[in-house]
């Protein structure tokens, strides 16, 4: 009886399996790399309606973070300031500058400046700012060196693994409370083991790894 199938089809199952494994592996790796928060979110730098520069205001002028983000110590939400906060200075400084037109309009009419949101956790995650900034976690750990940014950039992945790094080892990232808003503070050599561990012990820091801490 002659062969129904050509000889090369003998290799076909093996090729399909191997090929499938390779393709599957590549797709998985691709998705894992490209579609995780670390890749997808980090670097996001949208263009804002008003070219506000943190480098000028927070670093050069030395404004404390809390001057504008005043709710951060009491609320889960770190608020973007109302236009009236900007106008505290800008009713004199650059008071007719066209770049600030939206801010002036907002302060006068109440129409909000449509800032583009950069840092956002999914709806099923409940993150609370107040408990972090009051317990030795600085803005810089999650938001990066904002005081050096001209345009705010999504600096860290803010995925669950990122949060767990610190929740599992708070001593590595904790700092004294008075340095929380000092974004340039550098922990001294070996601080995590000595100072950090001491703070964790003294303050009874148990950030918790249970689901209920963030997911309600």
């Amino acid at each position: 009886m002659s062969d129904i199938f050509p000889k090369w089809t003998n290799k076909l199952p093996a090729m399909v399996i191997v090929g499938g494994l390779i393709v599957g592996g590549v797709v998985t790796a691709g998705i894992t790399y490209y579609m995780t928060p670390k890749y997808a979110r980090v670097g996001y730098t949208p263009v804002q309606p008003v070219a506000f520069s943190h480098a000028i205001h927070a670093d050069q002028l030395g404004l404390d973070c809390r001057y504008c983000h005043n709710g951060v110590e009491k609320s889960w939400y770190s608020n973007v300031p109302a236009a009236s906060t900007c106008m505290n200075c800008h009713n004199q400084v650059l008071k007719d500058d066209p770049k600030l037109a939206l801010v002036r309009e907002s302060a006068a009419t109440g129409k909000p400046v449509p800032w583009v949101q950069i840092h956002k956790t999914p709806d099923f995650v409940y993150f609370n700012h107040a408990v972090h900034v009051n317990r030795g976690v600085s803005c810089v750990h999650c938001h990066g060196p904002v005081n050096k940014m001209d345009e705010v950039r999504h600096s860290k992945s803010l995925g669950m693994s990122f949060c767990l790094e610190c929740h599992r080892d708070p001593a590595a990232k904790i700092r004294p409370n008075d340095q929380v808003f000092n974004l340039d503070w550098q922990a001294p050599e070996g601080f995590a083991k000595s100072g950090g561990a001491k703070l964790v012990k003294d303050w009874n820091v148990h950030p918790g790894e249970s689901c209920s801490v963030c997911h309600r």
Partner: protein
Amino acid sequence: MKFIPPVCPEPETGPQYFRSPEAMADSAQLQEWAEREFPAGASELTVAESRRDFMKLMSASFMLAGFGLTGCRRPTEHIYPFGKQPEGYLHGVAQHFATAMPTRTGAIPLLAKSSDGRPTKVEPNPLHPDQAGTDQFAQASVLGLYDPDRAQHFRNKGNIAKRVDALDALSQISKRAAANGGRGLAIIAESNSSPTRARLQAAIAAKLPNAVWATYDAVDSTIHTQAASLVTGKQVTPYFKFAGAKRILSLDCDFLGSEDEMYRYTRDFAKGRKIAKPDSAQGFELISRLYTVESLMTLTGFSADHRMRVAPSQVAALAAQLAAEVLKQSGRTSLLNTSTLAASLKVDVTLKNWVAECAKDLVAHKGAALVVAGQGQPLAVHVLAHAMNEVLGAFGKTIELHDAPAAGKPLAAAVGAETVVVLGANPAYTASETWSQIAKSAKTIVHLGSHEDETGKTATWHLPAAHYLESWGDARTSDGTVVAIQPLIAPLFAGLTEAEVLGHLLGNPIANSYSLTRETFAALTAGALDEEKWKKFLHDGLLEGSAAPAVSGSFNWTAAATALGLVTATPAPSKEKLEVIFHRDASVDDGRYTNNGWLQELPDPITKLVWDNAVLISRETATQLGWKNGDVIAISANGRTVEGGIWIQPGMADFTLGLALGYGRKWGRIASFEDKSVGFDAYPLRTGTAGFITGASAKSANRTHPFICTQDHWTLHGRPVVREANVDQFLKKPDFAKHMDLDGHTEFLAKNPDGSIKNIYEHPYKTHPELASKSHQWGMVVDLNACTGCSACVIACQSENNIPIVGKDQVAKGREMHWMRIDRYYAADPRKKETGSILAAFKSNVTGSQGNPDTVNLVERDELQATKRWIDDPQVVTQPMMCQHCENAPCESVCPVNATAHDDEGLNVMAYNRCVGTRYCANNCAWKVRRFNFFDFNKRPIGGGKMADSFFKLDIGLYKGPAGVRPGDEVDIISMARNPDVTVRMRGVMEKCTFCQQRIEGAKISQKVKAGASNDVVVKEGAIQTACQQACPAGAITFGNILDPNSAVSKLKKQDRNYSVLGFLDNKPRTTYLARIRNLNPAMPEGHKQIWTVEEYRSISDPHFMPESKTDGAAKGAK
């Protein structure tokens, strides 16, 4: 060639999306590409070598576009801050404002939570002396504020009108009225305790003396004032104080259920039932004892220690007998002659003894006894009750008298008026006959209503009413304290308040509630518009020291005798002449909440029916008339007929039909679901505001109606899920609850050295101690002695946790979403069994005598239980059931994706985003407290569409999935009711009680924020109250940290009565219950020696058990 991602087509200055890592490094190459207007290859297209190259280039870039390297990977979201920062407002921090929900006779003092500038939850006001929780209506009122069917427009003869025009019309009416002293003007309003309204009413009476002010309530509570005023000769209203009453007799008074002040009565009654420790010296004085005489099965009947069921017309005769006995035993027979009335009740020996023993018990507790009569009973019964109270020395002890305003004119007084202004009432629906007379003669009808309801549709001018959560106002709670009503949000639809309408009628074109309330307040605080006093009033929500003083009065026996003399005895009802009771529904009140989805879906506390009302009927009546559950009957009385399906209700009086008011509407997405009314309208059968009518007849209508009941099983089947004992048994053996069920019989199990049961799998907290938090471990205790089954907690949980409603169809499939449920069990009188023990009856039924009405078959089909004689006079227990947060949770070990895990503080938590919808956890849960989102219930439109049987006829949006949308007008407004602190769950996700995780985390976070750089991170006792705990009027639920030995919950768990439901499974639930203690009077007839759930339990667990009978000596005591 190298694949360069093409430039995002948006212009530079607009929203720009991140493209590649190189952009971050700002590489020069990418910079160059970014500056080019067109993709790199585009310019080559003009000299394209081949279409193939073009396709390669374009397809490559499109493919990479799929990886999100071009725009639109992340949709732009915006943050919109304020233009001018409001003072004292922090986004994300909820604010609380004191307010009050006005009721007919008073108000419920509340603390309303405002999230993001809108009210999302109401709590009781902790500063008010009542401290009495809330009821289910207050909890559901938040949804009422966001009801999409609310009146949203001013209407003139049905057409949308402008607010200014409507106010103009009011001015015209005011001018016309002022010209002739108010002749031809009638104002119809409901009862209200507001001092502002009283002031304006007086002003109208002064300015327009010929105007008629009619007070009309569909459910009339004014009989209490009427009776008290009659017997004391002063205009007073009684203020009942159940806490100090050791013996209570209720004459058809459902003070735990349908009376207006139910939440306060529940708290006071619970105070008299809670037990701190088993003090055997007190004996039967340990807790109060409740005797009820009633016709319907009510929540008061659930809690009664002794219950007599009689038809409503016979309550008067029974009350007369009781009064005669009380007078006789106190040696004061000469004071009142009740013999004629008393004799009209046919007496059998049991009844006579019941009356005698009950009277004896009351008389033995002079000064600590209370007799109350129900709002549906005629004046005679109230007079008899007060006569007994006087003899028992209740006045001044358990009854306080407060000054009351004069009664208003009845509704009929408005007939003949040219201009009728209806404030809030709905007489077209609740009093259609009288209203049609009024509407005939009225030229202008102005209706201020929350919905465009039946009255609103007939009105010339319909004004949308402002909800109490968006109005300024005031009220008085029943003790007389003035409470503030302040808005948490500006009126959503520019509605008006009653006070504003009255202000306009008085001729003030700029009347607004704020000024009117402030003026009243100034008058109440003697003078000036003191800013500080006003601010304190608004902050506290009440005016200190404004409680009404007690008025003393002497009993006018002559007036009482006269009132009694006017009464003629009514013959008992029979098969041909039935009596019909009209009662205030536990879900929709008198009809004002028919369009409230939460309340419609709330299982009725008595019947556990949802989305319906039924004709409640006793087994005997149904058997004699040949009906069964679901048969529709036509009831006729006074020339009118009403049709409704019957539901056999255990404990119902014979030849009496119970009809709930408030259903059968023809408008509203919820009230008339799929164009079919929910329930049937009982009002046409009613005369006036009668509590009941006599002489009705009923016959079959030859069809059936499907009733959906969430609890079909009526008995406990002998399982000690609810553990009870009588007071004497409890005092003899205080830890009886720990010796029932298998967890009390562990002699045969292997034990650890410390006495605990040796497990195959060690508790994770033992093997890994670091897993357990040393700061907090949460636990909860539910006191079954306090719980009356009112279900306020169920609605509170729904409000707090964004629990959706699912509709009648889905509840029929068992898919209701309430995280908490109140289980209600009926227990059988063992003497109603065939022979000997329940086990013998069980055996005989297995061999085929099912359907024998005299048996208690514990394994029979539920349809047959409605035919059994034992349900005629059952004992009833209720038990709130929610996630038990087992330490060894059976649900956690079976989740394939670990979506439900145990946290370090003892809670079983749900991560909704992880759940894939296997439902194995719900399968494994022995308490059945897990709920699954079978559909996207939160996205479904509420009512519309065909929700019929066939899968393919559905077009109600159930299957719309992520792309599904609700109609626009529902989306915005119903979303406002949601609590932002809790995830809104999607289809395919399991959910369950979380012990209000959001409140626990919120309290922990607050404590840590306060602690700052210190180690004071343990949450203080009392900082966390779960929603159910806070709402419970009885204070039955206690929650707290069991690591703290001084916390309330730890102390309760140490009590001997403490037990776990299904504790023998050794899951170690964190929610435990305190066993129920009843106070049965051993001298009473009926053989009430033993609690019947205990009888059932013992007869199952002990094959040689014989039930106690009437002739046995004192109780043998629980095993």
